[in-house]
């Protein structure tokens, strides 16, 4: 844990559709230290996948606005040209495990050949050395290296997910972005993958951004939690503080809706649905569904810093109102 790895400042990514401009990522700021795992929690359509892809500059073709700062090891990634970005950052220093990981292996290419592609392409390493590194990575994630010469269909879902994770470790990345890495896996397989990620985290000291809609699952990895709602981060907090006492009303209501297995609790839900990102309401975007709404909420909520770099965006915590 030495110093800052990633600092995202006021990141904006909009894209244009026939029905108008979608404000998928709308002024997002957060920072992470080396070795830290940040969980980004949010419901479908809140912009969490768009945020991840924006960091990797994997933009939709119809992007209309893309600005802000992404400082990675103090270098602003927004200023790098495409070639440098492709060579040094994307799938090298920062890797990505996509949401539909089970379908992201090419069915007609052997596992080994697709695993080493980033090495051949980004790092110009020769094939035999690359295969050796792939074999080592497979063993690390608990898959026999004999599978280098097999096709994806010969592997189960959990094993395919392991292959993808192994692939994303090959280039010795500093940051791994995992977008719902277990959403289509069974409970036991999911637990297996979580164990593996915990192991990687402690042994390799890798930083991770873990994107999920599953609040309980997020606590399996998160050192820090960002809650996203309608294109914005409404709360950024340490795991200790967040899971014990979330601050933003949305976080609180979301926590109430998580059924717990071991202790009794009163379950709640949030009536209504999130606003459209085509035309988000003025002021606080959660106001319409918020039980604590008052006049102030029609204005943009301020960022209230809690301690360290934790913050909450809510008028309740505004000056002299708490």
């Amino acid at each position, binding site marked *: 844990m030495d110093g800052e790895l990633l600092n995202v400042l006021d990141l904006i990514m909009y894209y244009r559709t026939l029905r108008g401009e979608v404000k998928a990522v709308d002024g997002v700021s957060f920072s992470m230290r080396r070795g830290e795992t940040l969980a980004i929690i949010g419901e479908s359509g809140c912009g969490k996948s768009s945020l991840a892809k924006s960091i990797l500059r994997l933009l939709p073709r119809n992007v209309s606005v893309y600005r802000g700062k992404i400082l990675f090891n103090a270098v602003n990634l927004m200023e790098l040209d495409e070639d440098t970005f492709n060579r040094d950052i994307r799938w090298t220093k920062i890797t990505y495990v996509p949401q539909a990981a089970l379908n992201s292996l090419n069915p007609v290419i052997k596992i080994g050949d697709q695993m080493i592609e980033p090495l051949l392409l980004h790092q110009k390493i020769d094939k035999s050395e690359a295969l050796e590194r792939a074999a080592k990575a497979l063993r690390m994630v608990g898959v026999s290296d004999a599978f280098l010469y097999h096709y994806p269909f010969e592997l189960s879902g959990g094993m395919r997910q392991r292959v993808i994770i192994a692939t994303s470790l090959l280039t010795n990345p500093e940051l791994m972005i995992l977008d719902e890495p277990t959403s289509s896996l069974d409970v036991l397989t999911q*637990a297996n993958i979580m164990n593996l990620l915990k192991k990687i985290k402690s042994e390799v000291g890798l930083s991770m951004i873990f994107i999920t809609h599953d609040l309980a699952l997020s606590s399996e990895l998160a050192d820090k939690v960002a809650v996203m709602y309608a294109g914005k981060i409404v709360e950024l907090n340490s795991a200790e503080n967040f899971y014990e006492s979330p601050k933003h009303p949305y976080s609180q209501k979301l926590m109430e809706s998580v059924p*717990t297995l071991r202790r009794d609790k009163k*379950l709640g839900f949030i009536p209504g649905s999130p606003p459209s990102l085509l035309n988000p309401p003025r002021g606080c975007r959660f106001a319409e569904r918020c039980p604590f709404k008052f006049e102030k909420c029609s204005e943009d909520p301020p960022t209230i810093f809690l301690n360290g770099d934790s913050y909450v965006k809510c008028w309740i915590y505004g000056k002299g109102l708490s």
Partner: protein
Amino acid sequence: MSHILLYVENLKKYFEIRRGLFGRRRLYVRAVDGVHLTLARGEAISIVGESGCGKTTLGKTILRLYEPTDGRIIFDGNDITNLEWKELKWYRRETGLVQQDPFGALPPFMTVKRILEEPLIIHGFKSKREREERIYKVLERVRLTPIEDFINKYPHMLSGGQQQRLVIARSIILEPKLIVADEPVSMLDASVRIEILKLLQELQKTYNLSIMYITHDLSTTRYFSERIYIMYAAHIVEDADTREILHNPMHPYTRALLNVIPDPDPSNRFIIRDVPAGEPPNLINPPLGCRFHPRCPNIKKGLCDVKEPPRIEVSKDHYVRCWLYG
């Protein structure tokens, strides 16, 4: 003992597949392989299992959407195991299905009104006024209100939660006694899941409805069902009252499941969880003996891998299929 609505005995459903040259080898996928269960009037039970364990097939066979291969299904005192399609009409009226993907379950070209009217027409509600009354009543029940805002909409104009409420409305419009809800909330966002489950629970109480939840998510069953059946590789491996199974799990598979499900807790990230190695078996050629034995941490060699364990009552109403207790 309250009135038993559904009694299922040794239910089996095998699907035939053909392999080899000209499909001359016949193989069977044993999706449901000897299931016993009972469901009382007004009770809610859960069938919990991982994908491919046969839980959806079990639900569909009980609804007689599939023909059972063997066993008996008694519903409200009537044996419906071998009813012909024509005779099944009354059974269709007594039962309802809530599917996992609400959008896929709703015809995209029909309005809310038409979707709800369809079952009424099929089941001979001749008077238009009566049909309309029913539709209004059911929309109010599932709280798609104000009704005028919804009645002429098409499914794509509704949010996921609203679509699922419409699916529920359709399943109860004929006032059935039994609902099979197959992963009713797994496609929905966390914040609306509880809303839908609470709605189902409310209907259960108001109509004295029996509900069979099919789910992979143990943590919700705790709040919404009175009894849990754990399914693994086409068998029910353990069943008991919800409290009992959560506090006193007996089968090694149930224990493994309970052990890996996280509650939100910042200390989770420091724990490596015990997970049984391997994967569920395929159902064409399931392992001899107990189907969990290749993964079981408590295996008794020479017994578990040879002989299928019987269904043992370990305490009152708590059944386990495991040699540890035999």
